[in-house]
């Protein structure tokens, strides 16, 4: 089976600082991959390289290649807008728009040209159901999303992302601002979503990595120290640094 994403010899710089150093990793289709490592090791930067969100930073430079479905995403002919539709992103802090719940989910569909009201309503409902939020909000779709709890807001952001039917969902510490119960709900959701989507999740919580992901990559100082099956990485890591990190000796 071909990989969903193949990253080859990726180096990322912000101005003079070298953030990512020779990253090589393949991401499997419809599986969950966790990125772990201490703060400032480049996990989030790596994640944002995959949907070209770093392009907005003027000092961003990169070398090497990132292939999505065997297609280079940094080629000149690639439409960034189209790419971000295919590679969705959920942020650390829930960031719903100050619009109604309905409009939050419909937003992506509308900007990509969907106008039919009935189809919109149907897709919004499907997306909210897929994000396990429908039952909680179906009677107040016209209410502002800002009135929802943090956990609900984060699931709304997931609904907003899956509404445009991406292939990949990038999650940047999606539970770090949430309480344990909301975290469980998001993790359950990730288990459900992996059947249809390739998910890459940055997490500081190693238990979370073992709970949700099939594969894990350990980042340290801008390099991938070790990557592979989560079970193997956590039970018998090959690298001493990985072992030190997962056993809590640093980080």
């Amino acid at each position, binding site marked *: 089976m071909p990989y969903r994403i193949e990253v080859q010899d990726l180096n990322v710089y912000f101005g003079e600082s070298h953030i990512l150093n020779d990253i090589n990793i393949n991401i499997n289709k419809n599986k969950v991959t966790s990125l772990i490592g201490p703060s400032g090791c480049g996990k989030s930067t790596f994640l944002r390289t995959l949907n070209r969100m770093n392009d907005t930073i003027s000092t961003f430079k990169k070398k090497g290649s990132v292939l999505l479905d065997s297609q280079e995403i940094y080629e000149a002919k690639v439409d960034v807008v189209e790419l971000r539709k295919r590679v969705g992103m959920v*942020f650390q802090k829930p960031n719903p*728009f100050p619009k109604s719940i309905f409009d939050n989910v419909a937003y992506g569909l509308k900007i990509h040209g969907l106008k039919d009201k009935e189809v919109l309503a149907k897709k919004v409902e499907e997306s909210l159901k897929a994000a396990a939020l429908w039952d909680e909000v179906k009677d107040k779709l016209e209410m502002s999303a800002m009135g929802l709890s943090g956990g609900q807001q984060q699931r709304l952001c997931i609904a907003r992302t899956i509404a445009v039917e991406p292939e990949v969902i990038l999650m940047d510490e999606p539970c770090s601002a949430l309480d344990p119960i909301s975290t469980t709900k998001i993790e359950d959701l990730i288990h459900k979503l992996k059947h249809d989507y390739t998910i890459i999740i940055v997490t500081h919580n190693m238990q979370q990595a073992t709970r949700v992901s099939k594969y894990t990559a350990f980042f340290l100082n801008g390099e991938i120290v070790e990557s592979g099956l989560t079970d193997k990485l956590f039970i018998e890591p090959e690298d001493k640094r990985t072992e030190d990190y997962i056993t809590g000796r640093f980080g």
Partner: protein
Amino acid sequence: MDRLISPKNSQKIMKTIFWGSGILTILLLLLIIGYVLYNGLPVINLTFLFSDPIDSGRAGGIFPMIVSTFYVTFVAVVVAAPLGIGGAVYLAEYAGESKLVKLIRFGSETLASIPSIVFGLFGYAFFVIYLGFGFSVLSGGVTLALMALPTILRTAEVSIEAVPKSYSEGSMAIGATKWQTIYEVILPAAVPGIITGIILGMARAMEETAAILYTVGAALTVPVSIFDPARPLPLHLYTLATEGISMPNAYGTAAVLVILILIITIVTNTLLDRYTKKMMGR
């Protein structure tokens, strides 16, 4: 250690001073409004509001002046608001920190500090004479637009910059273009601030006298065409008072102006409050 004033007492003293300044500010405001209303309200009745002035304003009403005020202010806002909002979007979202941006900001701040009589002279020389607009609603309106522009631009820029970056990230990450993000997410979130800026600019235009002194003419009839001369309320008030035509009617005119501005401010504040509550789900 002996202190002249103990921390506890200095806290009390400072609190009283701040409280006092707050109260004094409100009292001064109430005093001015109260004084104008006390002297002006007795003159105001339906005839005063809805009839033409007689004998240069010694008798009759101020209907043409009320219409002139709205007309001239409308022209000013129609010209200044799009320019101000457009400029603010450029400065906040597209410009970055270039020399040009610094120049635009410097220009806008300088514009804000120019005395209004200078705007009046410029308006006379440029719009009335050079462009041939004559003494008209148009000349007065665009002169006032120049005055309102910095207020609108600055307030809009600040409120656009205050929109959390996470909103635009969320929008970009879903595949929205920069413009879609600005139009669909950033501007709606910045609307309360932008409207406040427009209202501030508008109030400034409504109350302005010097800038329209040489541009709008002095007609005592209702302006119809945009090229008709007009006489907004502040100018009428100025003429009535300085030429000793009628002090009671000058106060009446002032009261109408103050009430109009109060109504506009209160209504927009209420609407904005409602909009913000709906948007933020409170």
